[in-house]
């Protein structure tokens, strides 16, 4: 885990210029586990200016090339380096796929449905190769009918299957909102506990790279008040795989948030089977002065800010809350009791967002431990603008985090 963060700041290491050569054959033929970075180098997502150093979302399919590009070049450069290390290195989208694949192997009732999840391999390649391996019925390409295929997943879950429904983009799931809210969230209750809905709803969300308003939504706030649903957000290959597996095994409906800009994060993860706890937060960086609560992509903005803060003499504690609903109040509480100061950094909408709920929960439970009012940095309540600079100003940038911590610790 820590490896990722050691590298933050050294960011520019990986460039994903579209001009890199791209050899599909080589990529597809190399066993996943041989992909590896140069020895000792860790993968970095953010440049010092806070922008992401790869372009995942630029015009749909091209983005895929960019991802694989980066992998291919790296695989080229160091074929043998990884064999001596424990675990294996992979990208976040591959980690998700690995988790999914393992669960599908383990349990024949696990199936996938969604738009382009089968033959096309998923818009972000999370399900690549699964249709070939498991067949068209287990990896079901659906028509573009979000409400109906989500409802179908719920019906399948009620009758004994464990479907993983992919929203090609989280925003598309707004079209399935009725099914997610009224059926996923309520059916177990209204049926008096007779029917379970062990479904996973997942997909790419968040503000990407100039994808325009509809494809750059922060929907955590929309889903969080649905009763009966758990929500988790992954942020590293390790927790992506662990949360995917945990979500599939859970008897509850789980929404797994992935972030469009994190799919080609690279990390070495254990070879052994593991799962993450759906309800637990992750301690990213222990510290003494201030608790920074964050999740998903903002974790990297926070870590970038943390580097600056450390240089300025602060010792921030960074927690990736991971479980967006319910909150892990134990981990959060322990941190608050230690630092007495809280900064929340999220990409969610300011109004009614995760940060707002988190602020309320902390105030309710740990008010006596606070030495300063909680500061919550959320993205702006605007439709995500297309233009680069406007988009950048919509989400929280590392410099704002530094300023906020300085203010909190005055």
């Amino acid at each position: 885990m820590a490896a990722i963060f050691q590298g933050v700041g050294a960011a520019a290491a990986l460039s994903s210029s579209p001009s890199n050569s791209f050899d599909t054959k080589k990529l597809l033929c190399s066993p996943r586990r041989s992909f590896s970075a140069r020895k000792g180098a860790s993968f970095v997502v953010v440049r010092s200016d806070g922008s992401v150093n790869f372009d995942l979302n630029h015009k749909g399919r091209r983005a895929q090339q960019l991802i694989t590009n980066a992998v291919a070049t790296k695989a080229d450069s160091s074929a043998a380096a990884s064999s001596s290390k424990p675990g294996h290195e992979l990208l976040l989208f591959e980690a998700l796929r690995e988790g999914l694949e393992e669960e599908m192997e383990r349990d024949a009732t696990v199936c996938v449905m969604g738009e382009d999840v089968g033959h096309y391999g998923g818009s972000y390649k999370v399900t690549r190769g699964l249709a070939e391996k498991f067949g068209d019925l287990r990896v079901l390409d659906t028509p573009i009918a979000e409400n109906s295929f989500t409802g179908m997943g719920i019906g399948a879950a009620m009758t004994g299957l464990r479907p993983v429904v992919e929203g090609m983009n989280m925003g598309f799931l707004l079209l399935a909102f009725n099914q997610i809210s009224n059926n996923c969230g309520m059916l177990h209750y209204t049926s008096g506990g007779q029917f379970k809905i062990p479904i996973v709803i997942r997909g790419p969300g968040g503000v990407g790279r100039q994808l325009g308003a509809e494809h750059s939504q922060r929907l955590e706030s929309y889903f969080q008040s649905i009763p009966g649903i758990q929500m988790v957000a992954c942020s590293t290959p390790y927790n992506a795989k662990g949360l995917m597996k945990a979500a599939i095994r859970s008897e509850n409906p789980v929404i797994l948030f992935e972030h469009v800009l994190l799919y080609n994060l690279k990390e070495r993860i254990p070879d052994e089977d593991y799962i993450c706890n759906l309800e637990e937060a992750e301690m990213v960086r222990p510290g003494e002065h201030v608790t920074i609560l964050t999740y998903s992509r903002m974790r990297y903005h926070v870590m970038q800010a943390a580097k600056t803060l450390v240089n300025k003499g602060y010792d921030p504690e960074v927690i990736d809350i991971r479980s967006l609903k319910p909150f892990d109040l134990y981990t959060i509480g322990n941190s608050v009791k230690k630092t007495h100061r809280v900064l929340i950094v999220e990409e969610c909408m300011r109004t009614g967002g995760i940060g707002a709920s988190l602020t309320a929960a902390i105030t309710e439970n740990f008010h006596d431990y606070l030495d300063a009012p909680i500061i919550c940095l959320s993205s702006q309540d605007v439709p995500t603008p297309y233009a680069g600079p406007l988009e950048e100003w919509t989400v929280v940038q590392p410099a704002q985090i530094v300023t906020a911590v300085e203010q909190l610790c005055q």
Partner: protein
Amino acid sequence: MSAAFSTAKFATQPFPLNTTSPRSHDKPLFDPLKIPTSSSPFLGSTRKLRLSSSSKLNLHRRSGAVVAVSDVVKEKKSKSTPNLLITKEEGLVLYEDMILGRAFEDMCAQMYYRGKMFGFVHLYNGQEAVSTGFIKLLKKEDSVVSTYRDHVHALSKGVPAREVMSELFGKTTGCCRGQGGSMHMFSSEHNLLGGFAFIGEGIPVATGAAFSSKYRREVLKQADCDHVTLAFFGDGTCNNGQFFECLNMAALWKLPIIFVVENNLWAIGMSHLRATSDPQIYKKGPAFGMPGIHVDGMDVLKVREVAKEAIGRARRGEGPTLVECETYRFRGHSLADPDELRDPAEKAHYAARDPITALKNYMIENRLASEADLKAIDKKIDEVVEDAVEFADESPLPQRSQLLENVFADPKGFGIGPDGRYRCEDPKFTEGTAHV
């Protein structure tokens, strides 16, 4: 009539859909599916509909000619066919189920006005032939997905009247422990996948249940899994996207599902004909590559014939069927509806076609049952319904401790509290007093 009936039975013949895998790209472009020819009474009446547009009476606006049980009887007699449509035993089962549906709903109205049940209560009076005609052909493993008008579907599927009534009373002995209510009846034991209170949302769920059947057979290799799913919904739903989306998916994957439209002509206060560009709903089946059938929904025997064939098709893996049952509700949309909009003449017309009376007459005329036999059933059902009310009335209201149960199948979903323990381990949680 019998000729027309057999035409109506299936608007299309089974066609060469690809049977191997949904992956196949070489799906044949089959001929435009045949729709019933002019020998069908339903298309004939459409012509009438257009010509008689000046008519004030809604009756003429129906898409299909209405055929009574007695017509079938005459037909049978004229041909002197010895085969009746049902045996005595079957007839009695149908009669009992329809009587139960009617008596139960009438009792609901009483109980609602007496303040024993609350909220929106939608009664099924008049439509019994559809529920009974279809559901009584099912096995226990087959699934039913209903709407907000779901009490009678639950009863037909075998959920005890006591449990349904108790649910309506909001009691802990209800089929959903009082947590569902009138529009959310469920029974996992009887594979009633629920009453769905919003328009159309049950159709995808039903499609998912049908998908599970296919999955069990083809992926889990449970060769004996021939379970089918019935999705009930009304004419109003047929203008909703989920209806079309699911027709497409069900036909695409040849799912074992029957889409049963209970066309009672009215979506609350919106006439089907004012809402729908082409009011002949069954014609939308062939458009998606599945048979579309129109049947007189006031005639349980006809419904049953059609249902038998559609369910058989689904069981054999031949895919979905769309069945439009032309029916009528004898009461308002819900007990809160003053029902002032519908034409009294229209109501009177359908009241005269009461499906229970029709079945009764058929059985007596054909000596399938005596007046006394049927009276005995009436009496038995009265007792069942009385007993249900008594049971519900005496049942306890839910305890507070029930409040937080069943929100999550795994209560860990409530998360970890400040003390580091899962909240569901807190005694207050079990007491229902925890603040979640």
